[in-house]
Each structure stands twice: as structure tokens, then as C-alpha cells.
């Protein structure tokens, strides 16, 4: 809400500069979005009088005006506004002036005629078109006759008023009004506000209850009051009121509608007005709407209602969406003679739901959603009547028609000084603390350490002790609060084993050259279902904003492939990334909340290293990534053997270059090349990837970190080279060697693999170093020879190898 500083000053003796006031409010109450004036950035705009107005010789719509701006000579200005006429007092942008949107006005020629400035409409001097009265929308603005020629325009139009834009938090609905803000500032600056109260002069001959009655559902409208005025005259409201409205971003319409908005700004109480003569059968109801009832708001929005909406209606038609906006049917128009002002309190839940359902957010709904002062309804209604009477001498009928009411009483909250100081960490004295409550306008009864604080209904946000702590803290000032640290028993902060392992995982992969990526958990249904390591149903959002973010991922890799594509599209071909995050599995279609499983995944594409003067880079391959994964798994000290088994189970992976990874027989993930077709779809270069179930890795038993004793005795190494069928795997050979190698065979290391020239087709040459070691004795050559013989025999038998 934009609060007018001038308006505040009517009730409060404030002398601080506006920006300081804004700062103070922000530090003590609610956030301030801006402190501005309409005249900011404008220059050389004055009141001028059009002395003569002739048709432009070369145009059918332009006029050539001679304008008095209280200088030696009249200014000749060409003007295209349809409403320009001699005798009018208008806004003149002098040569060298600056008008709205930072536009500079210079002397110019328009169709051959000199123009020394510009006559302006309100929108041209910076007012948003949405607040410009309809009358002035399509032409220049014309001042009332008392405007002084030659004077700057700003004061006449309220453009010199400081407007403090409050960003009111949901709990401080009371500050969505001038009076509420005045109360707040009175507390902050320790001032006494000087508020006025309406005096209603009723016409004793007329009775409101003769003209209208009301019947309401008290759950919808716990307070509902009407007053009737006869013989109103619909006309523009005085300029001072129009200024109040447009400075609060509300467009002036006519005196009746303007009064409702003015009262809402002043008191925070929304007011609705109806044309009495358009109400059928002299009765208003507040009820639930009927399903599919079609209505049109006074702003022209067509709305189809639901039966959870709430309306004000006569016995034939709804006349308002309760608490939201008026409807066509009983609206005030130029011919209106008799009116009803309505003030009430509507269910904030219903108003809020209705506003959301139909996307109609009004000043009224904004206030009802945050609450209104239950004790202020009458005063606001009376004030509306009083002003209308003042403006048009309308007859205020006797009595307020009250269909429902609440006797709003102050709320009492007991609090002790000890507790205030203990919770806030302050050392206030009783007079200091109680004085803060008094400044806020709260009643205080002191009894030793105890205060009984009586909170007026205008601060409906306060009802418990903690609310009072806040009042004390903010008025006392957070800057005055000391800085301390919690005392009491010490606690030990340390990472859990799981957390340590996660941190370690990140470090190992980073040290292996992979960069930590964080991609989105929400993705397309298609990507969510790729690289499935297990069967799972998908989890979808009820109302996604886009299909790109509609489904919870069940893999990390698809996100990483998006990242690879993003990089490669930008000319970065070498990409090595890993991600550590959750995937979302559902075992059952009916399961509503998915299981969140921590995964870790990595991708390499392009090359892991760059060409240098002493090293040629190689394109990424399976074994580079396998080395990274091996190194990672090795670092985790898993208690169990790691196995890679070729698999063609993943449709998104190369069927001949992918392996499932098992630890002690448990599948924990896979590694391989992204299927060329998938790589094409992602528009990426050949890419290798792995994804592991980190949760399982974390939970798996770990080897105790003990140092293996290093044998004091020398080891013996022997090489063996074999020629073997291509389809025999390394794993098969190694396990055969290990099986036959005997107790002292310590290590089998593949040091050469060759299937090029001089090797018969269908064969490959493999060479291993076998290392033998006895922990307790010097190993004898004969033992090793025997073992080697056994191995050779076995390899020949099993795989038909040729020993080379």
C-alpha cells in the first residue's frame, strides 16, 4: 500500500524527512518498497491558461494555442488534444522541461507552425493510465479555476506528496490503512495521534429499515451493516479526494465510489455501495453462490461462480462477490439517486479462496484476507455517510441496518517482565517495558513482575505472549539487543559416517577430474524413466508448469546428459561431471510418497585431458571411466568383491559396452557408453557414464582399516603370455589363474593386450605378471614353477590357449 505522508501528517505531528521515515518503518514495522513522489524526475511543468485556441492551418485535429504562463510573452503551443479550449487552465511543459518517461520537451515546429512546449494530460506527466480519471484519459488535464497561472503543477495534483510504499506482511493487515499506520508511527515516535471521528447527521424523517433489510449467513458474514442515503448527486469528487486516491494507485470514478475507496484507505475497512433502487424487494442476502451462476463484475470481468463462492444478492440476482467486488446489476451510475453503503466482515477463508479461484484480487480482498478491525466497521460506515452528506447534501436515513455483529473487545494477555527479558535477552525495567505497550496504545496493568496487557481489536494479530515479545523487541529496537551465544550444556557437533562418506565421495570424484554438477530433480516423464536401475512407477506433479518439469527423476544421468549437451552446444567438448542427489522410486502405483534414494552418477565426454606439448590427449573410453569408478569404489573400503558383468539390459546404453556393477553379489549400478542413438538425441559426442546407488554403498559393510603386514621375504614374479579366443574375458582368465595359482599367488596383473598384426584372426594375445609371496618364509622357485605349470595346463584345457 502506498501511504501518503501528507495524509499521515493530518493526524500526527511528524517532521522527519520521508526517506528517514521509510527507513524507520522498515527497521521497526514492515518492509518499505520505496519512498517516491510523483514529481520525481519532472522539470519545468507549470499551470498555464489557454488564452486563445485556433485551428491549425495544416491539420484537421491540431490546434494552435496562445498560452499564458505568467511570463512576458504568451507561449505558442500546438496541441492535439480534443478537449483543448480557450479559457482552460492546463498543464504546460515549458521548453526544456522533462515530462513522464524521462521525455524532454524542446521547441519544435509542428506541420510548419512553431510550438514552444506542450500541453499535457495526466498520463503524460507520469501518472499511470490506470489511475487517470476517465474524463482525462483522452485529452489534456484541466485544473479547477483556482490554480495559479505560472505556478508549478505539483502541489495542485498532489505530486509533491511523499508516497511510502509499504510491503505489508500477512500479519500486519492493520497497516493497510492510514489510521493503522498512524497508530504504528505514534508508537514508534512516541507521539499522540489526533484522529477525527465521524458525526452523522441523520434525517429524522427517514428510516433506513423502511427501505432495506438484510439476512446473512453469519458464518459468511459475521458482521454486516447497511446505511441508506437518499438524494445523492453523482459527480466527480473534489480534487483533494481524487489526489488521495490516485496517489494510492486507485482511479477516481465519482463521489460515491471514491468515498468507498477513500474510507478503505483511511480505516482499512472495505465499503461496498449499491443503487438502492436497483435492489429488488428491498432486501439483501449474503449467501453462498449457486453453482455455475454467471455474473459480471463492475470492472467487466465475466465470472462463473461455484457454490463455495459467496455473494451479496437480492432475491433475484447477486449484486456483489462478497468482500471482493461489486457486480453489474445494482451498481451506481450517473442516474443514481439513492444508495446503500455496506460495511461488514466476511470470512477471510472464503474471500481468499474466491479471489484465488477467479484471480480477482482487489483492495477489498487483500484486506479481508489479512483481517479487518472488527471494532471499526461502524465508524467506517458512518464516515462514508458523513462525507457523502458533506459532498452532496444527501439525506442520511436514520439507523444502521445490522444483520450480524460481533462485540469486539480488547484481548488480555498476561506477561511477566522476567520472561520478556529472558526470551529476548534484554534487561528492561518495568517502566521501560510497560511504556512500550502504552506507546502502542495498549492498556497495561502492573502487578509486581506481572503485566496484564489489554490489546485493542485494531491489533487483531496479537493474542499470545510471543506476539508481545515481538512488540517489545521491535519498538525497543533490534540494534539495541545484545549479541550473545547460547549458554547451557555443550553439545558435540560432528558429521555422521554417512555424511563423511558423501563428502569423501565428492572429493574422490573431483580429484579424478569430475566437476560437481547439480541438475534439476524435476524433468520430463521421458527422461525421468531413462537409465532405470530397477522397476519403479513414476511420481508426477499434479499441476506442473511445463512438461519439462513435470516428473520426478528416477535417474541422475539424464540430467547430466542435458548438462553435457549444454556444454557441447557452447563449444566445450570436454566434459567430465558427476552429480550426487536423490532419485524418486515408487514400488507401487498407489504409493503416494516416493522413496528418496541417494544416487551418484558421472559422465565423461570428449577427452579427459587436452593435447599438450608432451602428451597427446585420447578420446574418452570405457576403461578411463572404469578406472575412475574402480578408484572410487576402492576408496570406499567396501567389504566384498567388485564385479563387472556385461549387460545389454539398458535401452539407453551401448549393448556391447555396458556392465552392471556388483559388490559382493549386490547390483549397485552400471557403467558404460551411452547408446549412440541416445547420444544423438541429446546431441552429444560419444559419452561414457556410470550411475550408482549411493544409499546402498553407504549402508554396505566396510572393511576395517587395518594395515596388512608387509612380508619380510622377497616375492617372485613370473610372466605368462597366452594366445586365446577373443570372446574369452579377462575375468575368466584371471579367475582360472587365481583358482590354480595356489596359496602363494598374490597378484595377477594384465600388462599387455594385443590383437593386431601377427595375431591370428579371432584371437588375442594377453600377457600377465603373476606375483608370488609367502608371508612367513622365503619362497622356493620350485613351488612357483609347479604353480605355473598347473596354471598353464588349466588355461590350455579350459580355453584352449596357446602359451607363447
Amino acid at each position, binding site marked *: 500500500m502506498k501511504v501518503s505522508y501528507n495524509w499521515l501528517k493530518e493526524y500526527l505531528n511528524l517532521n522527519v524527512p520521508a526517506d528517514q521515515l521509510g*527507513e524507520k518503518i*522498515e527497521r521497526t*514495522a514492515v*518492509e518499505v518498497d520505496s519512498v517516491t513522489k510523483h514529481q520525481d524526475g519532472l522539470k519545468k511543468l507549470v499551470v498555464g491558461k489557454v488564452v486563445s485556441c485556433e485551428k491549425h492551418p495544416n491539420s484537421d485535429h491540431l490546434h494552435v494555442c496562445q498560452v499564458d504562463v505568467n511570463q512576458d510573452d504568451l507561449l505558442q503551443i500546438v496541441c492535439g488534444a480534443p478537449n483543448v479550449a480557450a479559457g482552460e487552465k492546463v498543464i504546460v511543459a515549458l521548453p526544456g522541461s522533462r515530462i513522464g518517461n524521462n521525455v524532454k520537451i524542446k521547441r519544435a515546429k509542428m506541420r510548419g507552425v512553431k510550438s514552444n512546449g506542450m500541453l499535457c494530460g495526466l498520463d503524460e506527466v507520469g501518472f499511470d493510465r490506470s489511475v487517470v480519471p476517465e474524463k482525462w484519459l483522452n485529452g489534456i488535464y484541466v485544473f479547477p479555476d483556482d490554480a495559479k497561472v505560472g505556478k508549478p503543477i505539483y502541489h495542485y495534483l498532489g505530486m509533491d506528496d511523499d508516497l511510502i510504499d509499504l510491503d505489508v*506482511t*500477512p500479519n*500486519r493487515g492493520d497497516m493497510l490503512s492510514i489510521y493503522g499506520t498512524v497508530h504504528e508511527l505514534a508508537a514508534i515516535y512516541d507521539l499522540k495521534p489526533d484522529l477525527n471521528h465521524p458525526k452523522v447527521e441523520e434525517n429524522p424523517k427517514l428510516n433506513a429499515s423502511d427501505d432495506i433489510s438484510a439476512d446473512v449467513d453469519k458464518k459468511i458474514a459475521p458482521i454486516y451493516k447497511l446505511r441508506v442515503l437518499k438524494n445523492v448527486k453523482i459527480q466527480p469528487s473534489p480534487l483533494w479526494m481524487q489526489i488521495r486516491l490516485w496517489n494510492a494507485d486507485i482511479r477516481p470514478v465519482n463521489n460515491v465510489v471514491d468515498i468507498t475507496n477513500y474510507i478503505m484507505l483511511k480505516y482499512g475497512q472495505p465499503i461496498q455501495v449499491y443503487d438502492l433502487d436497483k435492489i429488488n424487494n428491498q432486501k439483501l442476502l449474503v449467501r453462498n453462490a449457486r453453482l455455475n451462476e454467471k455474473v459480471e463484475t463492475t470492472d467487466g470481468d465475466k465470472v462463473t461462480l461455484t457454490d463455495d463462492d459467496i455473494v451479496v444478492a437480492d432475491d433475484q440476482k447477486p449484486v456483489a462477490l462478497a468482500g471482493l467486488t461489486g457486480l453489474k446489476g445494482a451498481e451506481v451510475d450517473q442516474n443514481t439517486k439513492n444508495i446503500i453503503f455496506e460495511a461488514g466482515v466476511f470470512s477471510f477463508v472464503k474471500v*481468499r*479462496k474466491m479471489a484465488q479461484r477467479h484471480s480477482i484480487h482487489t483492495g477489498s480482498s487483500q484486506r479481508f484476507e489479512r483481517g479487518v478491525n472488527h471494532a471499526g466497521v461502524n465508524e467506517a460506515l458512518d464516515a462514508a455517510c458523513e462525507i457523502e452528506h458533506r459532498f452532496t447534501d444527501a439525506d442520511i436515513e436514520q439507523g444502521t441496518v445490522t444483520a450480524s455483529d460481533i462485540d469486539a473487545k480488547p484481548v488480555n494477555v498476561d506477561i511477566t517482565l522476567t520472561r520478556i527479558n*529472558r*526470551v529476548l*535477552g*534484554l534487561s528492561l525495567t518495568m517502566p521501560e517495558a510497560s511504556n512500550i505497550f502504552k506507546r502502542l496504545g495498549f492498556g497495561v496493568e502492573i502487578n509486581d513482575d506481572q503485566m496484564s496487557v489489554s490489546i485493542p481489536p485494531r491489533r487483531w494479530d496479537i493474542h499470545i*505472549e*510471543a*506476539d508481545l*515479545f*515481538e512488540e517489545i*523487541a521491535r519498538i525497543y529496537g*533490534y540494534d539495541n539487543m545484545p*549479541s*550473545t*551465544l*547460547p549458554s*547451557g*550444556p555443550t*553439545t558435540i*557437533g560432528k*558429521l*555422521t559416517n554417512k555424511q563423511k562418506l558423501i563428502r569423501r565421495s565428492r572429493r574422490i*570424484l*573431483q580429484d*579424478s*577430474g*569430475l*566437476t*560437481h*554438477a*547439480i*541438475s534439476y*530433480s*524435476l524433468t520430463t516423464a521421458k527422461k525421468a524413466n531413462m537409465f532405470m536401475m530397477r522397476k519403479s512407477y513414476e*511420481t*508426477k506433479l*499434479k*499441476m506442473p*508448469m511445463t512438461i519439462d518439469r513435470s516428473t520426478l527423476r528416477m535417474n541422475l544421468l539424464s540430467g547430466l546428459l542435458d548438462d553435457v549437451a*549444454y556444454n557441447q552446444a*557452447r563449444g566445450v567438448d570436454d*566434459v*567430465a*561431471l558427476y552429480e550426487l*542427489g536423490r532419485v*524418486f522410486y515408487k514400488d507401487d502405483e498407489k504409493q*503416494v510418497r*516416493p522413496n528418496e534414494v541417494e544416487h551418484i552418477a558421472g559422465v565423461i565426454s570428449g577427452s579427459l585431458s*587436452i593435447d*599438450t*606439448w*608432451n602428451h597427446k590427449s585420447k578420446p574418452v573410453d570405457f576403461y578411463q571411466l572404469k578406472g575412475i569408478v574402480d578408484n572410487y569404489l576402492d576408496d570406499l573400503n567396501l567389504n566384498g568383491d567388485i564385479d563387472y558383468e556385461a549387460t545389454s539390459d539398458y535401452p539407453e546404453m551401448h549393448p556391447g559396452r555396458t556392465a552392471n556393477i556388483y559388490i559382493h553379489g549386490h547390483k549397485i549400478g552400471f557403467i558404460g557408453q551411452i547408446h549412440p542413438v541416445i547420444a544423438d538425441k541429446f546431441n552429444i559426442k560419444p559419452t561414457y557414464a556410470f550411475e550408482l546407488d549411493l544409499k546402498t554403498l553407504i549402508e554396505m559393510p566396510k572393511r576395517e582399516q587395518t594395515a596388512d603386514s608387509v612380508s619380510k621375504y622377497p616375492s617372485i614374479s613370473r610372466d605368462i603370455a597366452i594366445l586365446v579366443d577373443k570372446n574369452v574375458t579377462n575375468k575368466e582368465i584371471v579367475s582360472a589363474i587365481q583358482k590354480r595359482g595356489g596359496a602363494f599367488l598374490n597378484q595377477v596383473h594384465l600388462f599387455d593386450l594385443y590383437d593386431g598384426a601377427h595375431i591370428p584372426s579371432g584371437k588375442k594375445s594377453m600377457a600377465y605378471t603373476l606375483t608370488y609371496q609367502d608371508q612367513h618364509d622365503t619362497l622356493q622357485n620350485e613351488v612357483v614353477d609347479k604353480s605355473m605349470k598347473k596354471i598353464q595346463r588349466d588355461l590350455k584345457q579350459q580355453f584352449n590357449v596357446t602359451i607363447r
Partner: protein
Amino acid sequence: MSLKDDLANIRDQALSEIKNVSDVSTLNQKIRVSFLGKRGKITKVLRDIKNLDPKERPEVGKYSNIVRNKIQDAVAKKNQELKQALLNQKLKDEKIDVTLPGSPVPKGSPHVIQSIIDHICDIFLGMGYQVLSGPEVEEEKYNFERMNLPKYHPARDMQATFYITNDILMRTQTSPMQARVLEKYDFSKGPLKMISPGIVFRRDNDDPTHSHQFHQVEGLVIDKNIKMSDLKGTLEYLIHQLFGDKFDIRLRPSYFPFTEPSVEVDMTCFNCMGKGCNICKNTGWIEVLGAGMVHPNVLKMAGIDPKEYGGFAFGLGPDRFAMLRYGVKDIRDFYLDDVRFLSQFD
């Protein structure tokens, strides 16, 4: 010529040859062998010793040993000299251009947001906090109801939510971890001090300042005697540890349904160090986190007596920290994983 003279001549000849030799093999294979070898010159001379008067023999024998030792020493010394020269030459030949670039070691970068989270965690671990993590797909109950945000509370508007069903949603904040921890915590084990980092989601269109996915770190301290000044001191400590002592904080009143009093916390603007600039809208301060004293309703709903226990909670956004700290203009940069962007931060 006496044998002694012969030996002296041999000695002189040997020393001269040794002196002039310039390679190891001539020295060792030729010179040493020709003088000291089994058929060398000294041996040859000593063969004639039997022709001498037996009285002279010991003296000549003794002298021959002196000569032999002398030559041996000279050979050894020369060997050492030649080796040294050889080595010097070798080292000279091995000279390299030390200005050529070193071989690159592949190294990945941490994610800047993770680094900030780790840093925050480490600071709080040092203050005796535990680090906990909660579900990203959360129950409405914990995300809203237990955080004192009943249905149709206007504050729910501030958090546009991705729902999965009416009761299940993508958590909009890490605060539900407060409710989850509170309902389980055993206060006989001492005060509760925890932080909970994680990903949260908002139903927002992605643009430079909004992301439908971002990070939060929740903090919670509950005990019998926790004061709001403890909150102020703790956050001050955090900011000093994270960014340095030059940075101040200030508290402003705000509103969160799950804290009362609630505050917004500003810190000295990174960009202008408090002088005022366009980033801080000329205030010198930038908003970095929200905090407050835990609302008694939150405690009550978790089965804790707010008369006995109380404390503070705070929530901060590592994404926002990173943007402010490093001048990152677009929050989406954190989730696109451009390696050129990511590798800037170590």
C-alpha cells in the same frame, strides 16, 4: 740404475700419464693395468728383486709399496675427477626448458553452492550442531500445518507449491525438518542444535532471480534458556566466519508463521561495503536470511511445552549467498552446469 730409481721413474711416468688421461676407460683399463696389473710395470721391476743383496731387498720392497700406493691413490683420485667431470657434462646435457608448461593434472571443481553449504555446516559443527537432512517430497502436514501454516493462511501465497497429491508436495522450505526433529527429539540428551541443508522447490517460472529449485539451510536451537540475543549473536558469528569481520548484520521485523518474533536479517552489502549502491538499493544492506524465535504453536504441535522449552530458528539461501558473494547475475547458472562457470570456484 738401481731398482729404486726404476721404481721412481715408473712412478713419475704413471703420475704423468694419469694426470693427462681424460677418459675413465683409458685410466682404468690401460694406465692402471699397465702399471699396477699382474703383468704391470711395478710387478716387472719387482721380479728383479731376487737379484739384489738380501739386505737391500726389504727397503726396495717397502719403496715399491709406497710407489704402488701412490699410483693407486692417483688413479682413484683421477677416477673421482673424471666421474665428476662426466657427471657435470651429463647434467649440462640434461638441461631442460623449465619454462615449458607442466603436465596438467585432471581435477574437477566443487559446485559453488555445495562449497557454501559445506562451509556453513562446518561453522555450525564447530558450534556443536548436528547436520540433518529431510525428505524432498514432503507431507503437507510437516511443510505447512506443523509449521503453523494452516490451509488458506495468506502466507501460503508466498510459497507457490508443487503438489503431487493434496497431501504430498515438493517441500517449499527446509523448515519441515524443524517439525520432524522436534517431534522425535529426546531432550534428556541435552539441547537440540541442528542445521538441515537441502533442495527446495517453488512453483515459479525460471528467470534470472527465480528458480523452481534452489537450496536452503535450516537452523534450529531448542533448550530451556535460549534467548533472542543468542539468535543475533549466532547469526553474527556465522556471517563473520563466512565472509569476515568487516560484515555486520542487522535485524528487521518480519513475519513467518513459524516464528514469533520474526526477523529478516540484512548484512553489509558485498558490493559497496555499506556505502550504498544499486545492488543494495542504496541502503548499504542486503537481505540474506529469515529467522526468529520458534512459535509456541510449532512446539506445541510437536508435543513440547513452550513454557519450558524455547529457542530460535533460521533459514538461509546458499544460492542467494553465492549470487551476492560472487556477483552471479542469473540463478539458473547454478543448475545449467556450464563447466566454464563451475570451474571458476574452488
